[in-house]
């Protein structure tokens, strides 16, 4: 007995379905015809049961969970993203990467941001030529720079880094005098977003003192290990560690990478026309 004859014998015509019918020979079609000609009809009472079963499967299936009544309530709860805060502009695939180590309270860093980086973000970052990465490098000499870096990291967590960085530099003199950073961070985003940022900043109790993060100090190590409960200190200290390896001697310091080739680090101010010429030259290689 070959497979074909076995198929003919064991599979009832109506249970096979359309595919099965195609594979059946004339005998099977004739069997169905005989079956129907005997006055038998489809088992209609089965259909409601099948309907209920299909409906039940649809409710239980994972794809339908999002459409069920309970799902929207779960989705409406804001779940903060996990992982390092994104403090970069542009596409990672850009041919040029510029990593900038800055201190939010450093006047030269503000000068670089206001006169160079802002124009670069609007021009070469927007057009996909440059990927700009911010690294925190708060200096011990600046009283509120570490605190400002915490706020910027918290803002980056909720996707508001660009606005907060701009606000911090635009109002550097004001918050640098009284330490009221929250005032300018709140003005840079919506009230709902600021509430999220505030919630993230809750574990960051009080401003950290300059002596705590002096390079090489024992307390700095302590801060790095314990984080004092502030989730962003780890990221700031990781940025500082990267800077130490460059090595960053002063802020702002920037490292330009072209197609994976690291160029020598440079520090100090550079104007956008000069930097743009340099980028154009790199891109023409």
């Amino acid at each position, binding site marked *: 007995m070959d497979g074909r004859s076995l198929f003919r014998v064991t599979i009832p015509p109506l249970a096979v379905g359309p595919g099965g019918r195609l594979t059946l020979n004339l005998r099977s079609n004739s069997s169905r015809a005989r079956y129907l000609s005997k006055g038998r009809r489809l088992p209609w009472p089965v259909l409601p049961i099948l309907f209920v079963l299909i409906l039940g499967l649809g409710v239980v299936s994972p794809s339908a969970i999002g459409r069920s009544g309970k799902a929207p309530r779960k989705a409406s709860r804001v779940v903060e993203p996990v992982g390092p805060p994104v403090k970069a502009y542009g596409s990672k695939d850009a041919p040029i990467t510029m990593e900038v180590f800055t201190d939010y309270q450093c006047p030269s860093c503000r000068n670089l941001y206001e006169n160079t980086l802002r124009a670069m973000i609007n021009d070469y970052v927007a057009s996909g030529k440059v990927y700009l990465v911010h690294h925190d490098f708060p200096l011990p000499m600046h009283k509120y720079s570490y605190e400002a870096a915490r706020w910027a990291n918290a803002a980056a967590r909720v996707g508001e880094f660009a606005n907060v960085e701009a606000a911090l530099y635009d109002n550097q003199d004001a918050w640098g005098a009284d330490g009221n950073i929250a005032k300018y961070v709140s003005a840079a985003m919506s009230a709902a977003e600021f509430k999220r940022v505030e919630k993230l900043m809750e574990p960051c109790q009080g401003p950290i003192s300059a002596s705590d993060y002096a390079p090489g100090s024992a307390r700095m190590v302590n801060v790095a290990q314990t984080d004092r409960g502030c989730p962003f200190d780890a990221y700031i200290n990781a940025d500082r560690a990267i800077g130490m390896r460059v090595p960053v001697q002063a802020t702002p310091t920037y490292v330009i990478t072209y197609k994976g080739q690291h160029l020598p680090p440079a520090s100090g101010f550079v104007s956008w026309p000069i930097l743009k010429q340099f980028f154009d*030259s790199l891109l023409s290689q």
Partner: protein
Amino acid sequence: MNALNSLLTWLALHGYWFIFAGLIAAFCVRDARKRRTLVRIMLVFGGILIGSIFLAAAYGKLKPLAGFPWSMRSVRTSILLFSMQVESYQILSPAASSLLAHVLPVFELVLGLWLVSGIWRRFSALLASLVFLGFMAAIAYAYFHGLHIECNCGVGPNEDVGPGALLRDGLKFLLPSLIVMWGSFWVRRAPSVTSAAPLPAATPAGASQ
């Protein structure tokens, strides 16, 4: 090319010892003819040593960045990187920084070759001394304005602007250049060996007493 650059850099960084030694030896020689000959020899070496400083500096500014081949484009990229470094001193406008960055390496190359050639050495050494003074003034300006930037002098290991860079430029570059300049003028003004009267410095100690 790398071997030549290493040699030039070594001469630029350590040549000042030869010049100081030559100067001391010139003062120690009592015979005017021998002294004159010694100074002439010292000037030949001094010109090469000071010239090598400028040649090494020009090479440092013009050489392609690591990973880039030698080409006009890569040299231009290096010059544009140097223009960023010039601008970091915050003395010149962007346009002036760019112009200086394009001119200075070529100027250093020409001046270096001029010093090595020995033609009109007194003038080339004078110009070299003025250039070194200019570099030191720029470093002092950046330092006293609180700029934490790198010297980007192009010779030897890079260091931040400050007393260290000033001391290095003063001791290793400016002082030897001034010695070569002084020696070049002295040789020209000194009486010929045939009618040579002993120079005051060549007079034996205590002879005037």
